[in-house]
């Protein structure tokens, strides 16, 4: 049997479709291994479905490489961080630490948003205050935000720590007080009569630009070297800040862009590889094992067992899969293992029917009759004499069944019945479809996941095609 399988594999590798299919599969397995080592096992619950993990990403933006095809230069997403102060000033009453973050801004548009975060603040006696300023390339400085760290609560003892597990975060673009500060800056420096209210959501255009009546938005981007200054004023030498962060929201992000929650689609897509392969292969292997076993028993034993198994698989294989799959997933709950179990339950009968018809041919062969005459038991004949003759065909059937399982799960996920704790390509598509990404042309959200589903299914179709000649030797002569 081992030789048969080896012959099958070498035959597979001589055909072009087989070669392409196997190469695709190898790439997929490598990506899957990377995805499983680079991500935590509870990726879905802890990262993917946790909006806080993606808060600092721009929303609904295309992949970074699309900038290459644009005439204007779009903003690159940048996260500026500091853990150590760049400058320390001491006076009798305060210790002032300045965290300076340098930002090169050569872009033709304002950032899509800006945000400021503070992590892990510790103080001994009285809470520190933090202020945020931006020094612009034209020598002007905008004061944007002031924060008084919350004072000790009753019953707390020093040292007090704040923003330890969840950082303090302010979305500067949408913050009314920031808009007020920016309006004051405009009035003082340019004499422009901008109202505070009208700047909410447009703060970045004012901070990273100069007033320009000719342009549509009222501002012209100001290119050059910016410096973001975070000044913390402490009362005690031992007080500290763990980390300050300033995010300049890009109009493009990463390899694959982001969705409406700011999630990095590339990470979700990569995580989809091991999930899709698991669903396809696990279902195919289990369905094949059950189907082959019952098919051989049914074909070789005959009689009542045969009729029973055949009637049962006839009924099961005639049930329209998708409605039942939807029903069961809807009622039993959205768990991936339930979906796989259902796919196996409805997958094996088709295999049983085909295998049985092949066993009927082999059963009357001389090899089997000779073994029976020599007194071999029925199980031995089925296992040692019938199964080996079927092996290549069984293997081909298994490969052939794999894409069906992957496509069924993708369809189910697309209808919103996917397992929410395990992100799949179908689910990404579902979210894109439901939030209307299709109708506004967010192609980076709906095109790649579908393409990956098709490529994965195609991989197995190609391998199955490459095996066709192994299974059906007549085809070897047809091709010339």
């Amino acid at each position: 049997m081992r030789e048969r399988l080896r012959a099958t594999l070498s035959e597979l590798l001589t055909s072009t479709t087989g070669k392409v299919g196997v190469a695709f599969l190898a790439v997929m397995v490598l990506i899957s291994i990377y995805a499983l080592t680079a991500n935590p096992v509870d990726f879905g619950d802890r990262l993917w479905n946790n909006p806080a993990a993606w808060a600092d990403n721009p929303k609904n933006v295309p992949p970074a490489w699309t900038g290459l095809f644009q005439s204007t230069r779009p903003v690159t997403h940048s996260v500026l961080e500091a853990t150590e102060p760049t400058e320390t000033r001491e006076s009798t009453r305060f210790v002032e630490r300045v965290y300076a973050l340098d930002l090169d801004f050569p872009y033709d548009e304002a950032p899509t948003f800006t945000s400021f975060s503070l992590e892990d603040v510790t103080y001994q006696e009285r809470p520190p205050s933090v202020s945020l300023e931006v020094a612009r390339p034209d020598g002007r400085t905008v004061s944007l935000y002031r924060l008084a760290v919350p004072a000790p609560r009753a019953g707390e003892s020093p040292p007090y720590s704040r923003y330890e597990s969840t950082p303090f975060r302010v979305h500067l673009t949408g913050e009314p007080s920031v808009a007020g500060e920016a309006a004051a800056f405009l009035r003082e420096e340019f004499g422009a009569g901008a109202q505070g209210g009208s700047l909410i959501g447009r703060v970045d255009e004012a901070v990273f630009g100069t007033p320009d009546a000719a342009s549509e938005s009222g501002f012209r981007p100001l290119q050059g070297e910016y410096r973001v200054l975070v000044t913390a004023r402490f009362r005690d030498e031992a007080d500290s800040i763990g980390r300050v962060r300033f995010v300049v929201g890009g109009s493009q992000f990463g390899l694959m862009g982001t969705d409406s929650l700011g999630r990095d689609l590339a990470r979700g897509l990569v995580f989809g590889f091991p999930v899709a392969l698991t669903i396809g292969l696990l279902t195919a292997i289990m369905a094949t094992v059950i189907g082959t076993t019952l098919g051989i028993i049914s074909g070789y034993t005959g009689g009542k067992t045969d009729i029973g198994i055949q009637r049962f698989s006839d009924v099961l294989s005639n049930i329209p899969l998708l409605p039942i799959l939807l029903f069961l997933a809807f009622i039993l709950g959205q768990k991936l293992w339930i979906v796989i179990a259902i796919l196996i339950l409805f997958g094996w009968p088709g295999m049983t029917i085909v295998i049985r018809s092949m066993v009927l041919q082999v059963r009357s062969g001389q090899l089997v009759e000779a073994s029976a005459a020599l007194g071999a038991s029925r199980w031995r004949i089925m296992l040692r004499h019938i199964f080996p003759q079927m092996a290549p065909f069984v293997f081909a059937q298994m490969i052939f069944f794999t894409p069906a399982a992957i496509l069924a799960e993708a369809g189910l996920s697309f209808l919103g019945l996917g397992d929410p704790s395990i992100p799949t390509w179908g689910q990404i598509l579902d979210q894109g479809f439901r939030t209307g990404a299709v109708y506004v042309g967010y192609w980076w959200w709906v095109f790649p996941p579908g393409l990956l589903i098709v490529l994965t299914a195609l991989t197995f179709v190609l391998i199955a095609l490459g095996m066709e000649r192994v299974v059906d030797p007549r085809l070897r002569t047809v091709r010339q």
Partner: protein
Amino acid sequence: MSIAKTLAIRGATLVGVLFAVLVMVVVTLGATGFSDRMLTAIVNEEVRGLRQGLAQTIRDADRLEAALRDHRQELEASYGLDRPWYSRLPQMIGRVIRLDLGEARTLKTAEGSSSITALLRERLPRTMMLVTTASFITACLGLFFGVKLATRVGSRSDRVASLFAATSNALPAWWAGILLILLTYVILSTFGVRVFPPGGMYSAPPPEGGLPRLLDLLWHAALPVITLTLISVGSWTYVVRTMVMNTAQEDFVTVARAKGLPESAVMRSHILRVAAPPILTGLILGLASSVGGAILTETVFNWPGMGRLYYDAILSVDESVVVALTFMFTLIYVTARFTLEVLYIVVDPRVRYS
């Protein structure tokens, strides 16, 4: 085996399918407690209706409550809510068969009725229209191209068609639909022309008059029909081509040619006549996916048929509608399957006379 017996066996199997689905649906509903919730909802609905009626005649609040309580107990007994779920199985199966599943929670027909039977009666023709049109076009195209390709096996067009068939096996109809919608959007944003609507069945508001209305319907149906045809025509062509090719190598075809029959007659009455039954088998096998696939395609194109209804029922967590639709989809499939089995016997004399 006589025709009657063959048909009886196939019929029995398909009835078995229907019954198996029913039992599975009802047992799942019962064992998970869903059927209790469904029946309780029906009882609550009836008691609420009764309260409004009785409040007119019984003024005393205590007496009203007592009367309602009595009535509720009566109702619960008649629905079997006071017994364990498995003792209700036969009754529940009966309700599903009669589609007597009460009202949908939020879904409504165009006339505003929320009865599940009315909903199905409204949606079923729309789904049938879409699926049958697409199947008909696919079958015609498949036959035409399949026969053409069978005469030039191994040519470049044959290889392209084979590759196309293999690819469309891996291409889900719903994603193909999404791509087409995306494409119409791109055309709209670059050229300012709306080639096809992104979804729905009529424009809003629908045009007046018979002909404009029909044209509007066709305009909306075009994209889903194109999608359904595009993804199934490849494998269908391939099936026809392979069957015709295999038959064309048989001796009796050579004999027919040797007799000097024109090629068209050989194809029509010798090759196609013999290849018809296996081609029909291909159609039967393809049916399952096209019926179930309507759920996904209609969802993508917002086509208000049974498939879209299924999606909406899932979104609004309406188990009664989901049950009714699961049953209906199985029923349609089984009916279509049986019709094809009968057709098969008509087409294949070997089944008739053996």
